[in-house]
């Protein structure tokens, strides 16, 4: 890790320069929320609150992505692989989303590796920004390990007054910041003071997690039949909002779009969600998770149990988007864990 100190106005100049030659994407105002969008000026960036409606996963595995094109001619099928890759710099990514991208890097590289995600990921430069106060009332990042980015960035900025402290974890990050300033010994004292204060604020403002973080998988496993699933499930729309806005929901559906001439078509990968009715429905009509309560349990288990066990960390990074998006307020992994913990069966 290399350290830098960069004056705020120098950072602005740097972003301004980057915009000239790169696609720079950052959170910009979007009604009363924010959204990741290409910048035309550094002034558009909304530092800190509030959270974007959807996470930056859209730039790594888009909502709908054409994977291949096919064409039939004389009993032959011509297949062309498709992948739109663009060099992109993501600026102002919160630690919860950095952690989520770090987790996605692991799952997408595990097996059945496709060429689309890695190529898009390689073309992406990640510049994170430290959160000094919770970005929304729904944030639970401190509780679920999402507030510390754990080096999952190229460059990471922390506001330390009239300057940013910048940590570079990769040569890409170093190259980027060295366009503005030279490496410098970090003002470790100042940085740790800022973070200490930050942690106190988060601890005061964020909802408490009652069980111990490390015990979450065990707690989930022991409560397959807890009434919380049924009670919350009753109020579930099966609308998949929680899936769509989740930075670590990565399930997809594959659709063929045949042209009406029946000689050519496109195969696309589209975001899917385990909370929707047909996610676990198979060709015979059998639905493995017909009940909304089962689907809610499945989603929560993915975050706090199955993937936690497999990769050693919670796959809810605490961004709070699902808690905001859910109209009936049933989906918060933290609240579910708390309810289970405090209502023993």
């Amino acid at each position, binding site marked *: 890790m290399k350290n830098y100190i960069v004056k705020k106005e120098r950072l602005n100049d740097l972003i301004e320069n980057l915009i000239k030659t790169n696609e720079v994407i950052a959170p910009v105002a*979007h*009604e*009363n*929320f924010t*959204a990741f969008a290409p910048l035309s000026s550094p002034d558009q960036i909304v530092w800190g609150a509030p959270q*974007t*409606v*959807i996470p930056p996963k*859209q730039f790594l595995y888009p*909502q*709908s992505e054409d994977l291949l094109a096919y064409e039939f001619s004389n009993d032959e099928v011509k297949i062309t692989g498709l992948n739109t890759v663009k060099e992109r710099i993501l600026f102002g990514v919160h630690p919860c989303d950095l952690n989520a991208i770090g987790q996605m890097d692991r799952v997408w590289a595990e097996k059945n590796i496709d060429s689309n995600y890695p190529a898009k990921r390689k073309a992406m430069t990640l510049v994170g920004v430290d959160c000094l106060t919770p970005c929304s009332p729904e944030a639970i990042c401190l509780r679920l390990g999402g507030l510390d980015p754990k080096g999952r960035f190229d460059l990471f900025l922390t506001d330390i007054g009239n300057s940013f402290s910048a940590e570079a974890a990769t040569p890409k990050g170093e190259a980027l910041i060295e366009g503005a300033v030279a490496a410098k010994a970090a003002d470790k004292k100042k940085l740790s003071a800022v973070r200490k204060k930050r942690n106190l604020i988060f601890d005061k403002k964020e909802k408490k997690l009652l069980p111990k973080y490390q015990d979450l998988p065990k707690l989930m496993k022991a409560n397959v039949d807890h009434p919380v699933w049924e009670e919350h499930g*009753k*109020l*579930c*729309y*099966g*609308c*998949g*909002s929680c*899936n*769509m*806005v989740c930075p670590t929901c990565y399930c997809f559906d594959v*659709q063929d*779009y*045949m*042209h*009406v*001439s*029946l000689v050519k078509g496109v195969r696309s990968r589209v*975001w899917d*969600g385990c909370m*929707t*009715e*047909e996610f676990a429905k198979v060709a015979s009509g059998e639905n493995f998770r017909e009940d*909304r309560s089962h689907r809610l349990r499945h989603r929560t288990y993915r975050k706090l149990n199955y993937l936690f066990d497999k990769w050693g960390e919670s796959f809810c990074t605490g961004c709070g988007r699902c808690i*905001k*998006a859910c*109209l*009936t307020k049933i989906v918060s992994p933290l609240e579910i864990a708390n309810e289970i913990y405090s209502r023993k069966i």
Partner: protein
Amino acid sequence: MSKPKVGFFSFTSCEGCQLVVLSMADKLFDLLGAVEVVNFREASSYKGEDYDVAIVEGALSTVHEIEEIRAIRQQAKILIALGACAHIGGINCIRNFDNQFEIKKSVYGDKVANFDSILAQPIDAVVKVDYYSRGCPPNRDGEEFVEIVTAILQGKKPYIPNFPVCVQCKMKGNVCTFHKERPITCLGPVTRAGCSAHCPSYGNACIGCRGLVEEPNLNAHQETLSGAGLTVEESLKFYRMLNGMMEVGK
């Protein structure tokens, strides 16, 4: 394989669904390369009766229309309901919840006895419908309609999502209508997706033109709507704008 012969028919409606098909530009020519149109009042005065596929828009609201749709069903091997009126009865069904005599009198005055107008109903209240092209008008500029025709030509089931509009609304990154600075009430959480959340993407509420999903959570929705300040009466009115028949999942 010879091209299937297609007839377009229109019942009680604004005929906007036929216009959507006509305004598909290049996609219309692709479509005409795959099928032969023998009956299409909005486009041609020629009227062939030898169609295999009937594409029907509009709701049924007269005795005469009921006789007509029965005759069409007898001729057609495949019947496609085009648009919300044909699919769920649509806006026509608003009248069903008022005094029928008063309604007829207000429209036809003292000539009311000359009209055989009856309660409005969707096509499948009278005859079997094989496929539905949903929406008011059919969504994504008719693209889904072409996908349905393509699937039929391939001999496979068309893919129609059975999840709520919220899925596609979130994909678009829209701020939820209920979470705006000035919240608006929305039927998205119970309405079948497939429109790419067209209305919420332009700052409006979903009004449910694609009909309800197979298992809408109406209790949850009532809670959401009353939380947003709607009375039960107002919520019902909201549903009845297009979903007066309240048939789920078709």
